[in-house]
């Protein structure tokens, strides 16, 4: 993979381009910054909300995790990986994770959500809902694993009914809004030609 940076003049303005993306389009660095800054801010807000005890139906949703998956799905696997690392750092810095492996977990999830687009399902809301349901289950299993390691008394049925399952349903409730936000930002800045855009 080459990382050649080329500059060209278009209509009297100087634009800086990266190498061609996965779909063969040229990518504008200015657009990248415009895309990424609001997404980073929204990820930070999601991490703050998740670690401030925000509850939906008595459970805290994995808001940051779902956001990372949505970004990977909409913007591509590379954006998903990058924002996965950023989101994981926010969660570990603001939260109480005893393992501090959120950057790795979130990075893998964001990357896979972007990479698998087009393999099994197309890029639309129903497809993301399927991805979201699966990703929520993976997060729930990880939560179960963490509780199993930390707690001295592990009652599987009790933890499933009081923690894991409510967290799963609270997380999947966030699928629709996070997808709308990510897709909305993508649509606003992708330009008048509306070509497919991936970093």
């Amino acid at each position, binding site marked *: 993979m080459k990382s050649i940076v080329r500059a060209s003049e278009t209509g009297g303005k100087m634009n800086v381009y990266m190498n061609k993306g996965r779909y063969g389009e040229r990518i504008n660095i200015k657009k990248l910054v415009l895309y990424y800054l609001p997404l980073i801010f929204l990820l930070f807000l999601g991490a703050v909300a998740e670690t401030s005890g925000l509850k939906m139906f*008595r459970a805290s949703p994995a808001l940051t995790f779902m956001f990372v998956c949505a970004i990977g799905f909409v913007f591509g696997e*590379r954006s998903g990986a990058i924002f996965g690392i950023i989101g994981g750092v926010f969660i570990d810095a603001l939260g109480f994770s005893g393992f501090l492996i959120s950057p790795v977990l979130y990075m893998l999830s964001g990357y896979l959500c972007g990479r698998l687009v087009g393999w099994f399902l197309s890029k639309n809301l129903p497809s993301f809902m399927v991805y979201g349901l699966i990703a929520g289950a993976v997060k729930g299993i990880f939560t179960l694993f963490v509780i199993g390691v930390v707690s001295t008394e592990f009652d599987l049925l009790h933890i499933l009914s009081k923690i894991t399952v409510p967290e799963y349903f609270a997380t999947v409730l966030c699928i629709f809004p996070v997808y709308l936000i990510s897709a909305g930002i993508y649509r606003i800045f992708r330009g008048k030609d509306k070509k497919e855009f991936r970093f």
Partner: protein
Amino acid sequence: MKIFKNKFFIVALSVAILVTVLFSALSVMGKDDIVKNAANVVATPFRYIVMKIGEAIDGFDRYFTNIEELYRENESLRDEIDSLSAALENERGAAEENERLKKYLSIIEAHPDFNLLEALVTGSSGENFVTFLTLNKGSDDGVKLGMPIVNEQGLIGSVCELGYNWCRVRVVSEASSGVGAYVKRSGEVGVLSGVVPNKDGVTCILEYLDENADIEVGDPVYTSGIGSSYPRDIYIGKVTAVETDVYLRTKTATVECAVRCEDLKYVIIVTGYEINRESE
């Protein structure tokens, strides 16, 4: 697998692992507070907004899950508003503050050596049972690590992380906490430890009691001031069950904590006290 065999994935995974290792190393060395302090200082104003949004969402959720109680509570509040009249509307803020100050006075009367600082709870975490609280006071307000957190009902926990304008509290029912405690009636001394709540809602156990310890269901449990940074004679809760281990020759008691951390809004940080003041 092809999806993992590309340069970007390897680089990204390496960066993620590097960040994780760095965080873990800083945590082990005890120097992760720089990053956490910076993140939480920026997050503190947003936490308050999120807290308000969370209360609104929680209120919306409770409408569907607790409607009978809402109707009864609504009727009770209507009656209270009718009886209070227009003067209470103007003095509501002062009345709430007055109530809190009265409760602080009862704490000072029980513990005249305490210096108190009120704090607002801006966040909580611990999945569906509260194990940590975030407060809006920090080192700028004179808060230090290990300071006890109480309210008029009893002990809540202690400060475990500290920033400029925020601090984090580990509650007594958190799995890694340990508080020197004793049974008021008989003087039996043990260690109160938090546990992950089981199906019976048990969150604390009093351990290391002698096999012949004089302890019964209903006994009040207080801090002993021994082996920890908590001052003596702060109410923790009451004994709800007692078990005897014949092989280890010890007794273990389950303790129901007096304070419900899920409903906390204001708490008190004890900024000055004498650890082993003897009870009168």
